[in-house]
Each structure stands twice: as structure tokens, then as C-alpha cells.
């Protein structure tokens, strides 16, 4: 069973004749006998996948890594976090997905509210199933709890992903606009309510 291990800014992927998927261009070194092959969008084939590819652009181009050995994966010296999924769903901004094990299903979605307003790219990725997914972030990721009566407001540039039963709304208004200034940053912030975890990085993109 392929195993993903985070070591600060590098992800070690140990392969035992099986397969993982990783962001294209993320291999920095490997030991053993490993093949790397383009896997396209990670959204299956056919028209649906083609449409998603058009929407998502280059934001989540994946490659298959197969064979025996250890691959070292990394992206722009960003911190790596491995999340274990046990049948539940993780939502992440596509550019933060570094790799995932074979048992998981990736789906690229129209991001709805956030994607439409942020100009950050329209691709949000949902990861579902049993296995491991590795995320990259500027500085370590903080997992912030959201519960009823305990809403969280996040700068869209610092938002990485979320997990749980969450609703996301936009906060604009005078207060937020004065915070980000004219012409810089996002004119909106994200307000999360419900029950779950929001993943936040320590830098603006």
C-alpha cells in the first residue's frame, strides 16, 4: 500500500508496485524504479472531464507515479500536510493539492460563489474516499474549528480548504473594503458557519 509521509517541505511517497497521483512537475527526486505519466485532470475521461479541464485550466494537472521506490515531491518549497480521509470529503483549492493515494476520488468543481468573485481561478477540488491526500501551503496549515455560534471569517488569499458540514458566505461591506485597500487583495472575505474545520495558511497567495 502506497504511503505518503510529510517531511516539512517534501512529501515522501513510498510505492510498492502500486500507484499514486501527484501534481505535474512536482517530482524533485526519486529512488528506485518509478514511472511518471500524465494523468490529465483526475476527473475521468469524456466530455465532462474535457469541460472541467477547460474550466480549471492548469490548476490541477496530474501525473501517475507507478512502480517500486520512493519519490520526493514538492512545490515551490511550500509546507506539506498529509490528511487521512476515512470515507469523508475534503474540499481544497486546486493549487494546494500535491498528491493523493489511489483509493481517493477527485472531482473538480465550479467553485460557485468563491470562484466567481475571487478571480483566483475557478477550480475547487473535492477529495472523497479512503486514503491520503497531501496539501501544500505557504507556512504550516492551521485547522480552525467552526461550530454553531462560532463562525470564522477568512481572507480568501489565506484559505486552503475545508472539511465538514460547512456553509460559506461572502462578507463585503465597508469594513472589509477598508481592510484590503483599493486595488489590492480580495474585495470579499469568506464567512464559514456550521460544523467543521477550515484550513488556513499563514500567507496571502
Amino acid at each position, binding site marked *: 500500500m502506497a504511503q505518503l509521509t510529510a517531511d516539512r517541505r517534501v512529501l515522501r511517497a513510498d510505492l510498492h508496485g502500486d500507484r499514486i497521483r501527484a501534481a505535474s512537475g512536482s517530482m524533485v527526486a526519486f529512488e528506485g524504479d518509478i514511472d511518471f505519466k500524465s494523468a490529465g485532470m483526475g476527473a475521468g475521461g469524456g466530455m465532462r472531464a474535457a469541460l472541467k479541464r477547460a474550466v480549471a485550466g492548469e490548476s490541477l494537472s496530474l501525473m501517475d507515479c507507478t512502480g517500486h521506490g520512493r519519490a520526493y515531491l514538492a512545490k515551490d518549497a511550500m509546507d506539506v500536510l498529509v490528511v487521512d480521509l476515512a470515507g469523508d470529503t475534503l474540499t481544497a483549492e486546486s493549487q494546494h493539492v500535491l498528491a493523493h493515494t489511489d483509493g481517493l476520488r477527485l472531482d473538480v468543481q465550479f467553485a460557485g460563489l468563491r470562484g466567481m468573485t475571487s478571480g483566483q481561478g475557478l477550480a475547487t477540488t473535492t477529495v472523497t474516499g479512503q486514503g491520503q491526500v497531501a496539501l501544500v501551503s505557504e507556512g504550516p496549515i*492551521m*485547522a*480552525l*474549528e467552526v461550530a454553531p455560534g462560532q463562525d*470564522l471569517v477568512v*481572507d480568501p488569499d489565506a484559505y486552503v480548504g475545508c472539511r465538514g458540514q460547512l456553509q460559506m458566505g461572502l462578507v463585503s461591506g465597508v469594513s472589509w473594503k477598508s481592510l484590503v485597500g483599493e486595488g489590492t487583495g480580495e474585495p470579499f472575505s469568506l464567512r464559514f458557519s456550521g460544523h467543521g474545520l477550515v484550513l488556513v495558511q499563514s500567507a496571502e497567495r
Partner: protein
Amino acid sequence: MQTWNPATLPADDNVNPHVFCVALSGEWFMAKGAMLAYYGDVRFEAVTAYSSVASWVAARFSSPVYVQDWVVAAGHGKVLLGDRGFDLNAYDLDDGNLTIKANNLLAFDQRLELKQSIVPGFVTLLGTGKFIASSNGPVIFVEPPFRADPDALLGWADCPSPSVHHDTEWMSASMAGMLQGAMGRASGEERQYDFTGQGTVLLQSSEIAREDPAVLRLIESQTQLLTTSQAGTLGQRLVARAQQQQH
């Protein structure tokens, strides 16, 4: 995975080396863009707008060059601050003063007073209170006598303002012309800030310069020192430079 909520987040302390959590109860000054996320009931108002309802604001924030890059955060909650993934540190002043690179100052509590430093790109904080600043890598503290590269200088406390030192050997090697081609561009070693006296100098690894909008405002305000003909000459030189850099 370690998780955080408003109760478990630290109060006025680092969450990790790159994120600081302010336990807001009242008002803080914050640089635009420094806020990553918050819990609670928090409002952000431009410093200029807030000063019309709270007259003390103008007395605390006395730098017209920087005022538009700052807001007042008011209310109750936990506010998380970050800056480019840099290291963040809190500094406690006890009836003291510390001068810091304006780009690296993220927040300060409303008891402190901010003034523009004589050294361009730096601001001085005075009084008793806490402020948060970022650095590229951990901060290095050294004592005078010390000479610092301007790009690596983060700030200084207690000691007199620095003077500029030019390296004699470097200048003479440069003037000798044997390396004129290679020496055409300044690399920084020929010029340092010279600190003397008692105090502490703060350094960081030099960073790729980030455009500081306040520097433009600062220099523009200083062109009032020029006569009309001098201002015209400066204008021509700037136009020539801009044209040269386009090619």
C-alpha cells in the same frame, strides 16, 4: 491534526512561527492585508475614518505617509495575523522606543504611538505596549558597534540613528576601474548603516525588495525641498531612466 478554536487559540502569542493571534478587546492598529482570519465580533475601519469618532487616533498614528496603509480593528475576538509566510514576533515596549522597517510592521496596540523615522522606509514606535513585526527568517539581535546592510536591517532600539558608511577598499577598487564593467551595479557591500553607542540592532536575511507605496509618497513630499529648476532636472532624469529601463 491539531485543531484550534477561539478558546484554545493563544492570547497575544504565536500560534506557530508564522502566525500571531491577537486577543482583541478594544482597538489595535493593523496593516492592511495582515489579517488571515478571525473569530468574533470585529470591525475594521480606515485609520482616517476611525479618527473622526475617536480623537486619540490622530495622536497615536502621526504619519501621513503610512496612514492609508493601516486600519483600526475594533471589537472582541481572536484575530490571526500573517505576512508572506515570514516569521512573526511580538515586541513589548516598556516606556521605550523601537524603530522598525515599515513594511515589516503588522500591528500595534493602541497604547503605542507611531512616528515616521528620519531613515526612509522606517517607523518608530514609542511608549508602553505590544507590537507585531515580521522578518525573513528569525530575527538576529546584535549590539553596536555594528555595520548593517540596508536590505538586511529590520530595526533598532535605544541606540542613536545610524549614519551611512562607505567601504573605502571597495570604493577604491571600484574607482581603479579594473572591474568597471562588473562594478557598474552596486551590490550593497560598498554602503552600510553604521550603528554606534548602546542599544540593539535587529537583522533579518535580506529580502527581495517589496514595493512600498509609502516610499513614493515620502520622496514626493521631499521634492518640496527642491527649487523649480532642480525639480525640472530631476523630472528629466527620471524620464530618461524610465525610458532606458524599457529597452
